[in-house]
């Protein structure tokens, strides 16, 4: 039996806030030239590349947060073990891989330690999501079995 916990609500609120912040950040990326020059120490020619990297990874992050919102909605409804969540986790894994690939491209052009760390984090996140997806699939099987046991 699913028990609602304050932790679930707090996580849901955190994801909602992050989702809004991520959208605002994505919108502000094209207008962040001066900040980019200061933070990355890049020249005018590299600004467009960095903006493209930030924009692409930002959109992927928004997509991940949207999928997490979908998963948490079903969790708070008390029925998280559904095939839609397996699909959501697979989409999150793909988005993580996309981000890792984007930063791999960045690493080739502008290699930094933080870029390598980001790549590692998102590759591991991708693998975790794929594992979680399989766990969810197995849970759905057990749930169906339990539901059809009279």
């Amino acid at each position, binding site marked *: 039996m699913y028990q609602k916990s304050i932790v679930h609500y707090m996580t849901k609120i955190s994801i909602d806030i992050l989702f809004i912040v991520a959208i605002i950040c994505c919108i502000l990326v094209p207008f962040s030239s001066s900040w980019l020059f200061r933070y990355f120490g890049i020249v005018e020619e590299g600004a467009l590349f960095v903006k493209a990297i930030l924009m692409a990874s930002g959109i992927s992050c928004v997509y991940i947060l949207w999928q997490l919102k979908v998963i948490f909605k079903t969790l708070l409804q008390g029925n998280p073990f559904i095939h839609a969540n397996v699909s959501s986790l697979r989409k999150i894994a793909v988005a993580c891989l996309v981000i890792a690939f984007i930063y791999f491209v960045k690493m080739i052009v502008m290699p930094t330690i933080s870029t390598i760390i980001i790549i590692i984090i998102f590759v591991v996140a991708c693998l975790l999501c794929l594992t979680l997806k399989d766990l969810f699939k197995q849970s759905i099987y057990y749930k*169906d*079995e339990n539901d*059809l*046991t*009279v």
Partner: protein
Amino acid sequence: MAIIIQLDVMMAKRKIGLMELAEKINITPANLSILKNNKAKAIRLSTLDEICRALDCQPGDIIEYVEEENGQ
């Protein structure tokens, strides 16, 4: 599946309805309907015990094994 639930036959013999039986054995009518329509994947021994008590019958009266044509 080769196992067939003959619950409806016993219910007809005992002249008892689905709702009444569900109430007697303390399970939901929806679950009893799943069992009656051969949709269930498994049956708990406790449920079988309650059904046999309520219908005054043996498990063999409700559950039947029918060999399928392809031998599976």
